[in-house]
């Protein structure tokens, strides 16, 4: 099992959507380019949580985590762009919940819990309109 394969399973739909729609994507722990309020960008982070479930026959793998998506767009231009982007990303992610589904090339199969958000806020001290949503994930790797 590699954590990169699980991240890839969930982040690839986001990467593809951003590439198709020319939206700057910044994954976790990447250097941020010098940005200004004229630009827009999307940030995604992935936090892993509990990995196993105890059973009477031993622990079984059941990887859990939290996938976070944040979108920064220029402040003062209305919420429509942020709403459009977040719903488009949500739509991509929801495809991961469709069943039946095969494991991907890395042997990963996963699904999402309830998506919280998107929530929208005009940031006080930065020139951005901020949108965020997150979802719990459950995955296993063969």
């Amino acid at each position, binding site marked *: 099992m590699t954590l990169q394969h699980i991240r890839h399973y969930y982040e690839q739909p986001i990467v593809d959507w951003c590439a198709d729609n020319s939206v700057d994507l910044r994954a976790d722990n990447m250097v941020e380019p010098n940005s200004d309020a004229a630009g827009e960008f999307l940030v995604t*982070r992935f*936090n892993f*949580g*509990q990995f196993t479930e105890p059973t009477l026959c031993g622990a079984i793998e059941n990887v859990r985590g*939290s996938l976070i998506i944040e979108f920064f767009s220029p402040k003062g231009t209305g919420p429509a762009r942020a709403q459009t982007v977040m719903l488009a990303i949500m739509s991509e992610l929801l495809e991961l919940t469709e069943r039946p589904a095969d494991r991907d090339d890395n042997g990963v199969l996963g699904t999402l*819990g*309830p998506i919280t958000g998107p929530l929208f806020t005009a*940031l006080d001290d930065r020139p951005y309109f901020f949108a*965020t949503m*997150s979802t719990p994930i459950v995955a296993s790797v063969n």
Partner: protein
Amino acid sequence: MARRGRNVKIPGFNRYLGEVSQVIAQEAARNITNELIREGPWYSGQFARNWAVRIGDVRIPATVEPEDNRGERTSRENVVAPTIPSLRGTGKNKNVGYTIDNRTTYRRIAMDLEPGRVEGARTISAPRDWYRSYIEAGPLKGALAEAVAAASKNPRVRGFKGDKFVGPTGRIVNR
């Protein structure tokens, strides 16, 4: 032979179930609040001291302004957990429960639901996305399971032997 459609009544059973769920909810609220205090960020301790628990699905107002103590970082210490109000007397409303939230005006930043806590920080006292990880990545489920186990030992629900809890999944509420 029992006739179809005839109700079988067990006197006091609904009341007993209500008692069980109230005790579990109260234990769960206590566990969750203690864990949020422990897992959350600590600078002066103000954020940790301002968790609140209210009955029902209500909004807990953010009224506590930041303390005027810039640069006064203190070491983490024990905090008295907020009082968990009893659900007794809330009637037959099956959906009554608790709302847990912080009362500080900067709570969404402290919970990393809005940016501003970790960017450029030299040290951080809680990992980034600690709140979302707690709710969504497993620990909340553990707190709920512990609540069921604790309730089974509570004299108010004597005879109840819950030892396994499945769900519900946590949901982040941002008001």
